[in-house]
C-alpha cells in the first residue's frame, strides 16, 4: 500500500525526468499503454493522478538514481515499464494503491473518477473477502472441543505460568507463550486451570480468549499470503488461488484453532515474508518512508518469529540471503557511489540485525522480569541463576561459605541441564553392572540429592560439637554418603549402564560403612579461592582413588528402570569437560556461620546466555526414544499421516490434523512442475532463445517470484532432514505456506501461457476450476478440522466414509 505510492511517485519522477516536456511524456506513456489496453479507458487516470502527485522536491542525487530505474532485484522486473499483457489486476491495483479515496475525490478529472472507484473496489473487495473468509473459517466452532487438545496442555500451562509468574523451562524462546499468557490474562483467564493432560475438560475456565488470539493470528496468514503473491506475481488470480488453497486447507485451519505456538510462529514468518517482498518492491525509492517502514517491519517480524521458536531462523536465513543478493546488486551498480552503498548497508544492519536483536533481548528481559517466582524450571538452571527466583531455597538464602566435614550438600554438575548428583533406594537391574543402588543426576530438587561429606578414614560424627571444624581442602580424600539411604558414592570396574567404556557408579555400604572403592579425591579446578572449597563458586572434580577415573554425567537418559534420570559414570578418560566438573549448591552445616548469596546474582547477559544454552541442550535432548513411532520429514509433503489432536474412539469428539489432500498433493505436483518448467525456461534463456515478450514477462514472474517462494519452501523444509530431535507433522506447516504460494504463482502463470498460446478462456476456466475444486474438497474434509463424532472412517456409515484415501490416515 504505502509502497505502491512510492513506486508510482518514482515512476512518475522517472517519466518527467526522462522526457522534459512533461505533458508530452505523460501523453506518450499513456498512449503506449493504450496500445495494450484498448479496453481500459480508465488508464487515463494514471496520468492524471500521477501528475497530481508529482513532488517537485526530489533531490538531484536521488533523481540520478531514480532515472536509472533500477529494478527490484528479486521481483518481476520484466514486468515493469509498459505492460506486455492485458491484465486488470495490475492496473487496478496500481491505481488503487496510488492514491487513496481522498486523492480520487480531489482528482480534477471527472470522467476518471467512476472507473477509478471501480478499480478501488476491485482492489479492496477481494482482499476484504479473503480476509473475511479466513476469519470466518478460523473462528467457526472455535470453542469446540471444550477440552484440552494435544499440545494445549503444554502451551496453555505455560501461559498460566506467566499469569502466575512462576519460573518454568521450555525449549522454545518465550515470546509465543508470553503472548498466549497475555491473551489469557486480557480475556479473563486467571491461570488456575491445571492443563494436566489432553482430554481434560475446561469447564468454567475461560480458554476461548487464548484460542481466539491464536485463531486471530492464524487468520492473518491468508491475507498475508494473498498480498505476498499479489506483489510477486502482479496477478489477482494467482493471489486468489493461493488464498483459497490456504483458507481451504484443513491442516492450516486446525493448527490455527488451538492454543499452540504454530499460528503465532507462522504469523510472524508470513509477516516477515510479506514485508520483505513489499520492501523489495520499494527498492526503486530507497530511504523513503515506506521503504523504511517495510524494512523495519521485516526486522520486527523476524524478531517475532525467532522469539516464538528457533524455526524462525529459517526465515531469517531467507531474508538474509535476499538482503545479500540485494546488496550485491547495489554494489555492482557503478552508478551508485560507495557512500550510498554504505548507507544501504548500514540501514540493513540497523533494521535487520540490530533492531531484531534488541527486540529479541527485550523479549527475554520481559520473560525474566515477569517470571520471578520459583517453579518447575529451576533445576535446569545454574545455582546462581536460581538465587534470583523468589521461593527458591537459594533466594535470599544464606549458607556457610566453605565446605567442612560433616556438611550436608547438594552437588550440581556444571554442564547446564544435567542436574544434581542423586541416588535413590532402587538397584541397578540385573545385567547392568553390579546390582547396587543407582546413582543418577536429577534435574529437580529432592531430598535424595543430599549427600554428607565425610573423611575417608574415620567414622566419628563430625557434627559432634566437641570436635573442631575441619574444612575440606583441595586434594583431600573424602567419602560422600547419601543422606537418605546412608550408602556411599562408589565406583568399580564394571561397565556403566549406557556408556560402556566408563565405569559404573553406585551407592554402596551399610550405614556409611563401605570399602576402599568409596574413596574420592576432591580436586579444585584452577584454584582461585585457595585450598578450601567454596560453595557455588569452586568447581571441582571427584577422582576415584582406586581406578583413577573421574566422576561425571554422560548426559544420557537412563531407561525406565532408572526413572529416565541421567546416567552418572566414572570416566577413565581424563578429558577436561564440563560433564565431570561439579559445584556445591546447598550447604547445611550448623557449626559454620552463614553468608548471604546476594552477591552471586548473575547479570542479564549471563542470564541470556545461560537460558539459550539450556534451551539448545533441551532441544537436542528431544531425541526419539527407541521404537517410538516418529514422523519422518519425507512423510510431510505427501500428507502421509496426520496427528491426532483429540479423541480416538468413535464416541469421542475427534479432531485430526491432516492437510487437505487435494491442496497438498496439488502443492507437491506444483513443485515438480515448477522445477521442470523453471529449468526448461532457464536452459532456453541460457541458449539465447528469443522468447516473445509475453512469455518473457511470464517467465520472469516464474523464475523470480516463484524462485523466491521456492527458496522459502526449501529453507523451511530441508533442514529438518538434518535434525536429530523428535519431529512432528506440524513442523511442515511453515513450508506448506510457501508451497501454496508457489502453487498459486505457478498455475496462474502456466494457465496464462496456455491462454496466450491457445484460447483465452483456458485461464479463467482453469483458475475457476482450481478454486472450486479446492472449495469442494474442503467441504468433504472439513470434519477433520471442525471435529467429528461417530463411527470411524472405515465404517461405511461414517460421514468420512470413502475419504480415507491413504491407509495411514487414522480418522
Amino acid at each position, binding site marked *: 500500500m504505502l509502497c505502491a505510492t512510492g513506486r508510482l511517485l518514482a515512476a512518475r519522477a522517472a517519466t518527467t525526468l526522462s522526457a522534459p516536456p512533461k505533458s508530452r511524456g505523460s501523453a506518450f506513456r499513456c498512449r503506449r499503454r493504450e496500445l495494450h489496453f484498448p479496453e481500459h479507458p480508465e488508464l487515463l487516470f494514471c496520468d492524471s493522478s500521477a501528475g497530481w502527485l508529482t513532488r517537485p522536491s526530489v533531490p538531484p542525487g536521488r533523481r540520478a538514481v531514480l532515472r536509472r530505474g533500477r529494478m527490484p532485484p528479486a521481483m518481476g522486473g520484466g514486468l515493469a515499464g509498459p505492460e506486455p499483457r492485458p491484465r486488470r489486476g495490475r492496473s487496478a491495483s496500481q491505481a488503487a494503491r496510488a492514491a487513496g479515496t481522498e486523492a480520487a475525490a480531489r482528482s480534477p478529472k471527472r470522467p476518471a473518477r467512476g472507473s477509478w472507484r471501480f478499480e478501488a473496489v476491485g482492489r479492496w473487495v477481494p482482499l476484504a473477502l479473503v480476509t473475511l473468509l479466513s476469519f470466518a473459517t478460523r473462528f467457526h466452532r472455535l470453542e469446540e472441543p471444550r477440552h484440552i487438545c494435544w499440545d494445549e496442555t503444554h502451551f496453555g500451562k505455560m501461559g498460566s505460568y506467566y499469569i502466575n509468574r512462576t519460573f518454568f523451562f521450555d525449549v522454545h524462546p518465550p515470546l509465543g507463550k508470553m503472548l498466549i499468557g497475555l491473551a489469557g490474562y486480557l480475556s479473563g483467564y486467571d491461570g488456575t486451570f491445571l492443563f494436566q493432560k489432553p482430554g481434560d475438560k475446561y469447564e468454567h475456565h475461560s480458554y476461548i480468549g487464548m484460542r481466539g488470539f491464536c485463531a486471530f493470528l492464524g487468520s492473518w496468514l491468508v491475507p498475508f499470503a494473498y498480498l505476498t503473491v499479489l506483489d510477486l506475481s502482479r496477478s489477482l488470480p494467482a493471489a486468489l488461488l493461493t488464498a483459497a488453497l490456504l483458507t481451504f486447507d484443513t491442516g492450516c485451519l486446525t493448527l490455527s484453532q488451538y492454543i499452540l505456538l504454530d499460528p503465532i510462529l507462522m504469523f510472524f514468518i508470513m509477516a516477515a515474508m510479506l514485508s520483505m517482498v513489499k520492501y523489495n518492491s520499494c527498492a526503486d525509492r530507497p530511504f523513503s518512508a515506506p521503504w523504511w517502514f517495510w524494512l523495519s517491519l521485516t526486522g520486527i517480524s523476524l524478531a517475532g518469529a525467532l522469539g516464538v521458536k528457533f524455526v524462525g531462523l529459517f526465515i531469517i536465513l531467507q531474508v538474509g540471503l535476499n538482503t545479500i543478493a540485494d546488496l550485491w546488486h547495489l554494489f555492482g551498480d557503478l552508478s551508485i557511489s560507495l557512500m550510498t552503498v554504505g548507507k544501504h548497508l548500514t540501514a540493513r544492519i540497523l533494521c535487520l540485525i540490530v533492531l531484531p536483536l534488541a527486540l529479541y533481548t527485550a523479549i527475554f528481559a520481559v520473560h525474566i522480569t515477569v517470571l520471578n517466582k520459583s517453579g518447575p524450571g529451576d533445576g535446569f538452571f545454574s545455582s546462581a541463576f536460581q538465587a534470583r527466583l523468589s521461593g527458591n531455597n537459594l533466594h535470599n538464602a544464606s549458607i556457610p561459605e566453605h565446605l567442612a566435614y560433616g556438611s550436608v550438600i547438594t552437588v550440581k554438575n556444571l554442564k547446564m541441564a544435567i542436574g544434581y548428583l542423586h541416588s535413590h533406594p532402587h538397584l541397578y537391574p540385573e545385567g547392568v553392572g553390579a546390582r547396587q543402588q543407582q546413582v543418577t543426576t536429577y534435574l529437580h530438587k529432592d531430598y535424595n540429592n543430599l549427600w554428607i561429606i565425610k573423611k575417608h578414614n574415620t567414622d566419628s560424627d563430625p557434627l559432634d560439637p566437641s570436635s573442631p571444624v575441619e574444612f575440606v581442602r583441595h586434594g583431600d580424600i573424602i567419602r560422600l554418603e547419601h543422606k537418605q539411604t546412608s550408602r556411599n558414592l562408589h565406583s568399580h570396574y564394571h561397565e556403566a549402564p549406557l556408556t560402556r*567404556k566408563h565405569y559404573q557408579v553406585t551407592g554402596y555400604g551399610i550405614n556409611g560403612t563401605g570399602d576402599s572403592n568409596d574413596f574420592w579425591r576432591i580436586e579444585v579446578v584452577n584454584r582461585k579461592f585457595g585450598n578450601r572449597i567454596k560453595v557455588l563458586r569452586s568447581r571441582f572434580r571427584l577422582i576415584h582413588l582406586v581406578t583413577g577415573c573421574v566422576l561425571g554425567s554422560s548426559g544420557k537418559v537412563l531407561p525406565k528402570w532408572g526413572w529416565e534420570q541421567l546416567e552418572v559414570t566414572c570416566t577413565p578418560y581424563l*578429558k577436561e569437560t564440563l560433564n565431570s566438573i561439579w559445584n556445591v549448591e546447598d550447604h547445611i552445616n550448623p557449626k559454620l556461620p552463614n553468608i548471604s548469596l546476594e552477591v552471586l546474582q548473575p547479570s542479564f547477559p549471563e542470564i541470556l546466555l545461560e537460558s539459550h544454552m539450556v534451551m539448545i541442550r533441551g532441544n537436542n535432548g528431544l531425541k526419539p526414544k527407541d521404537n517410538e513411532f516418529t514422523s519422518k520429514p519425507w512423510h510431510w509433503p505427501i500428507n502421509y499421516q496426520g496427528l491426532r489432536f483429540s479423541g480416538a474412539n468413535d464416541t469421542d469428539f475427534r479432531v485430526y490434523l491432516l492437510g487437505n489432500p487435494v491442496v497438498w498433493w496439488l502443492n507437491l505436483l506444483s513443485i515438480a512442475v515448477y522445477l521442470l518448467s523453471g529449468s526448461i525456461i532457464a536452459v532456453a534463456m541460457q541458449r539465447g532463445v528469443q522468447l516473445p515478450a509475453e512469455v518473457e514477462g511470464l517467465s520472469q514472474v516464474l523464475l523470480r517470484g516463484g524462485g523466491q517462494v521456492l527458496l522459502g519452501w526449501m529453507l523451511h523444509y530441508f533442514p529438518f532432514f538434518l535434525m536429530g530431535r523428535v519431529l512432528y507433522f506440524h513442523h511442515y506447516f511453515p513450508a506448506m505456506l510457501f508451497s501454496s504460494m508457489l502453487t498459486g504463482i505457478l498455475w496462474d502463470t502456466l494457465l496464462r501461457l496456455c491462454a496466450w498460446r491457445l484460447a483465452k478462456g483456458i485461464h479463467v476456466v482453469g483458475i475457476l476450476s482450481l478454486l472450486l475444486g479446492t472449495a469442494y474438497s474442503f467441504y468433504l474434509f472439513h470434519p477433520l478440522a471442525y471435529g467429528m463424532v461417530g463411527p470411524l472412517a472405515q465404517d461405511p456409515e461414517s460421514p468420512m466414509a470413502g475419504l480415507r484415501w491413504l491407509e495411514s490416515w487414522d480418522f
Partner: protein
Amino acid sequence: MLEFLKCPVVVTAEVNLTVVALAAAGLLSRLWQLAHPRAVVSDPATRPDSTQNLDLRPVPPWGPGGLSVGWLAGHSWMEDPRERESVWSSDFDEVYYGQYISFYMKRVFFLDDSGPPFGHMLLALGGYMGGFDGNFMWNRIGAGTDAQALGPSSTALPGHMQGAGSEEEQPGLEPAPIWGAGTADRGLTHCTTVPAPPEYSPNVPVWSLRLLPALAGALSVPLAYQIVAELHFSHCAAMGAALLMLIENALITQSRLMLLESLLIFFNLLAVLSYLKFSNSQKHSPFSPAWWFWLTLTGVACSCAVGVKYMGVFTYLLVLAVAAVHAWQLIGDKALSHVCVFCHLLARAVALLVLPVVLYLLFFYVHLLLLYRSGPHDQIMSSAFQASLEGGLARITQGQPLEVAFGSQVTLRSVSGKPLPCWLHSHQNTYPMIYENGRGSSHQQQVTCYPFKDVNNWWIVKDPGRHQLVVSSPPRPVRHGDLVQLVHGMTTRFLNTHDVAAPLSPHAQEVSCYIDYNISMPSQNLWRLDIVNRNSDTEIWKTILSEVRFVHLNTSAVLKLSGAHLPDWGFRQLEVVGERVSRGESTVWNVEEHRYGRSQEQREREVELHSPTQVDISRNLSFMARFSELQWRMLTLRSDDSEHKYSSSPLDWVTLDTNIAYWLHPRTSAQIHLLGNVVVWTSAGLATLLYVLLFLWYLLRRRRNIRDLPEDVWLRWLLAGALCVGGWAVNYLPFFLTEKTLFLYHYLPALSFQLLLTPVVLQHVRDHLCR
C-alpha cells in the same frame, strides 16, 4: 594391409622425470620397512579394555622413546630389531579391517556399517596376493564387533543366553543380593582382563596386506604435482605441493598401515586430476580419445572414492558441481549447435552419473558374490537374505514346504528387527496380576518376542472351523484374508488379545495366550491374515517370502512388536502388543522355520517341535533385492558411538591439538604416533585464510569493475580455489554435523586438498602482489 611396414614405427614418449622422481620418493617413504611392526594391530577405538593397561595420561609424542618429532615419527625403526617379534602393538583400526579381510578369505558374509565394501575388498586383495588364508585370530573377533553390531543382544539378555527352554527352569530370576555383588567387584572383572598381545603369525603376509594403502599413499605425491600443474601453475608450485604431500608425516603414518584413508585420498585426487585433464582437453579436442579417457576416469575414480568410504561422496559432489558449472557455460555457448551441446551433456551424464552408479553396484555385486557363506552378522538381515547364504539359516530352512497350510508349525520373525531381531514367543508364565505402577493385567499367559531360537517360538496355524492341529492331505494353503488361530506349540494356548492395556505401552492392547479363568472374559483369538507384499488378493502365505500382518477380528488391532523390554517378570524379553492404528515394519512378521505338523497328540507334538525341520526347496533372492537390503541395513545400523581417549573434535584438527598414539613398545618405548607436521599444517591453514581474504577482495573489486587480475589469471585462481579450498571444505565441514566418534585421521582427506593450496597461494602472491 601392411601399410604400417612402409613407414617406421616410432613411439615418442614424454617422461616427466620430476614426476618419476616424486613417485620414487613417495614409494620410498611409504614402503620402506613396511612390514615393520609385525604384530597385530589393535585399535583402541574398538577395544575399551586397552585403556586399562596403558597409562591414563596421553603419552607425549616426544615421549620417553626419544623418537624424533616431525615426519620421522611415522617410522619407528629405532628400537632393537630383535625385539620386533615380541612387540605389543597397536596400529589403529588394523584389527578392525583385518577381521573383514579374514572374512573375505573365508568367504563369510559380514556387515560393516562404516563404509561400502570396495575399500575392504582392496585390502583383501592385498591379502589374496600375499596368499593369506584368513586363519588368524584378530583379537576380539566375533566378540567385540559382534556385540557392537548386534547391540544389546548379547549383553542385555544374559539370562537367556543359555538357549532353549532354559528360562522355564528359572522363572523370575531372584535379584542377586546387593552385598554379594558388592564384594565381587573388588577383584578383577572382565573389564580388566588384558587381551593377549596380538602378534602376526607367520601365515599373515603383513607386507602385502599393507602394500596397497602404501602404494596409494605414495602415488598421491605425483598426483599432487600434476593437479597443480594442470591448474596452470608453475612447475615450482607443483613441486612444492608434491613435496608437502611427501613430507607430511600424518599422511605417511596413515599410509603405512592397513587402513583406508590413503586409498580414499588417492581416489579423491585422481578424480580431481582426471577432471582437470578432461576440462583442459575440452578446449582444443573434445570427443578425442584422451577426452573420453579422462572423462571416464573421473567417473571411475569418483565411484572408487565413494566405494572406499562414504566420505568420498563429498568430493564426488564437488567434482559434479564444478562439472555442472562448466556444463552450464557450455549451454550458454551459442557457437555450438544444439545437437553438439546435447552430445556434450549426454557424455557427461553417462560418465559422471550413470557410470559411478553402475560401478557402485558392481562393488556390491562382487562383494555379495565373494561372500556366500553365512557368518556372524546373519541375524541382522532378513530371513530371506539369510536363506540366500550358504549354511546358517539356509541349512535349517532348506527343504521347508513353501506354502503355509492349516496345521503348519511355524516360527514368526519380526521383519523390522528393531531393536533386536526376534521371534514371536510365549511361555507358561503369566502376566503379573498387578504391575509395579498399580495397573492390573489379565493375568494370562505372556506373549513376547524373544531374540533367540527357542522351542517356545513355535506356533501352529489352525483353521478356526476345525479341530485338527495337523496338516490334512492334501494340505490346504492359507491365503490372504483367511481367518486363522495361532496355537502356541508347547502350551497349546491360543494367541489372544483384548481390551486390556499392555504392560509397557498402556495405549495398546495386551496380547496373551488365552487362559480361561471363567471370569466372563471370553477368548478373542481370531486373526485375519493380511499379506503385505502380496501381488493378488488370493495370494498364498509363503514361508520366508510373505510379509504378513495379523489383524485381530474383534478389535481390529494389529499384532505389533512394541520394542520395549519387559521387566524382570517378563525376563526382559520384548513386549508384543495389539495396536489399533498402527503400521510400519514392526507390525509385519514372516515365517522363518516351517514344517507340516503331523502329530495329533500333545506329547508327540512336543517331540516333533524339538526335532529339526527338513524337506526341500531352494530360494534365491535377486541381486537388487539383496543389494538394497544390505545397503539399507548398512545405512541404518546404529553402532554404539562412544568417546575415546584419542577422540577429538573437528576444531582440534585445524590447530593440531590432538594426536593418536598408534603403537607403543612396552620396553623400549618406541612408538608410532599419528601427528601432523606443525609447519605444514600452519602454512596450509594460513594459505587457506589468505586465499579466502584475497578472493573476497578481488571479488568485491571486480564487482566495482576494478580488474586487478587479467581474466585468465582470475579464472585460474577461481578454479584452484574451487578445487583446493572447496575440497578442503567439503571434506571437513560435514564433520561438524556428524555424531560419530571422530579422530584426527578423519581430517586427512581434507588436509590433502589443503596442502595443494599453499604453493598456489605463494605463487600468486609472488606473481601478482609482490611485483
